Each structure stands twice: as C-alpha cells, then as structure tokens.
C-alpha cells in the first residue's frame, strides 16, 4: 500500500509535499510534490502542478508535470499541461494537450 492515498471522495485544496509514494484517487487542487512515485487514479480530478520521481496519469489532470524518471499517461487518462521528463509515454486512448520536453 502506498504511503499516502488521497482516496475517492477526498478533496485537498493546497500543497501536498511527500517523500513517499502518493496515490490520488480523489480531488486535488494546488500543488503535488513527491520524491517518490506519483499515481493519479482513474476517478481523480487534479488541478495542480505535479512533481515526482515518476508520474502515472489515469485520471484528469490540468497542470505541468515534472519527473526525472518518466511520465506515463494511461488509457483513459487526460492531461492538459506541459511535460518534462526523461521518458514519456501516451497510451492509446489517452488525451493530451501540451508541450513535451525530454531534454534532448
């Protein structure tokens, strides 16, 4: 089980800072920073800049994503914002609008 779970039905307005895995299944508005993996679940609605070691998106996200390792948009995931990561994948069925910087 992840260190931090923002469950379905939970809303946070503000900054979340963590040094462990964060799973968001609820709503978040503000900023999310973790030194570990960040996972945005299918049912979640996030309006926040997200920074994590790796970021996986299956829900709706509006905000910029930064990850030293990788960013993955899963099928059904929706991202509006810029992505900065060493690796970046967009699954079939995901939607994305924004710029990509893979430090080429």
């Amino acid at each position, binding site marked *: *089980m992840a260190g931090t779970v923002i*469950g379905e039905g*939970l809303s*946070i307005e503000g900054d*979340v800072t*963590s040094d462990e895995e964060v799973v968001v299944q609820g709503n978040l508005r503000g900023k999310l920073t973790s030194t570990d993996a960040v996972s945005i679940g299918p049912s979640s609605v996030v309006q926040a800049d997200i920074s994590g070691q790796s970021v996986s998106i299956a829900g709706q996200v509006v905000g910029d994503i930064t990850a030293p390792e990788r960013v993955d948009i899963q099928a059904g995931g929706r991202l509006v914002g810029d992505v900065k990561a060493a690796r970046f994948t967009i699954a079939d069925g995901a939607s994305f609008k924004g710029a990509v910087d893979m430090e080429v």
Partner: protein
Amino acid sequence: MSQSSVIGAGTIVRGNVEGEGSLEIFGRVEGDVSMGGEVTVSEGGAVRGNVAGEKISVHGAVQGDLLATQAVLLERGAKVVGDLSAPRVGIANGALVRGTVRTEGEPALAAPNKRVAAPAVFKPSAFAAKPVAKAEPKLAPPVEPDDEDDEDEEDDYDYDQQREAAVMPPARPKEKEPERRPPPPVLPSLGKGAKAKKKKHRD
C-alpha cells in the same frame, strides 16, 4: 464514494482537506480537516487546524479544535491544544489536553482530567513519612560488616581498573594486602640488612 484515505508519515499537506470517507493521518496537515467519516490522527501524525468528522480519534498531536458528530477519543500519547466538542468525549490515561471540553447530550467520559493535579499533592507527604521509618531498621541491624567491606573492595577494584593509568599507586596495595597478609607478617619490620642476616642463617 466513501473510500479511506491515508496521509503517510512522509507527507505534508498545506491546505484544507475535506471528503466523505475516512482519513488516517500519519504525516502533517497544516489546514482544516473536514470528513464525513472517521478521522484518525495516528501516532506521529500532526494537524495544525480544526478537525471535523463523524468520529475523531487522536494518538498524535492536534493544534486546533476537534468537532465530531459522534465521538472524540484522545488516546494515550495524544497532545491536543484546542477545544473538544462531541456527544461523547473520551480522554485516555496519558493523553494531554489544553482547552475546553463540551459534550452535547450524553454524559461525558472526561473525568480523568482531575488525576493530574490531585495525587501530586498527597504523594510528597506519603514519601516523607516512609523514609524515616525505613532508616531506623537499617541502622538497627549492622550485623553484616563483612558484606559491606567486600562491596567496598570491589568498588575500589573497579575504580582502580578504570584509572590505572593515572592514579594507581595508592590503590593497588589495597588489593594485594589481604592476599599477602598471612604468609609474611615479619618482613615489614625487618630493616635492609635483615634479609642478608636471614639468608646467612638459612645457609
């Protein structure tokens, strides 16, 4: 909708948290928490803000008011600075509270508050009386001087070992005296020339 949420030990939330499910806080929340279900501030967890929920149990620290529709339970190790308000309020032995407590409806379980101040007054007098009584019997039977001596010697020995480098000379004779006493009681009284005389006699 009512899924449980966890704010882990390494996580800090600056802002308000609200929802319908239950929430367990191992990390820090700087802001108000408002849940439809149960809120648990676990050991090591801290909240700086008001907490509202159906049932609130605290093992960690809260700086803010606790408002529950069912119960507020402060467990051992809890530190709360703020007001408590719920139909049932429980404060366990070992929980610390500064604030007012209001229980609406049913009678409170908050009696243990008094325990802190009252016994402290009586204890000193009780302790003061006992040592006097104990001291006399100790003085009465001084039948075991041997044991005490042994203890002293052991103590000296330990100290000597520790201080060997610096303070040896006066201490070592004490250890060796009891061993050497029986065989040569004569030697100390003899002068320098006496040894030679003795040898001559033996020869």
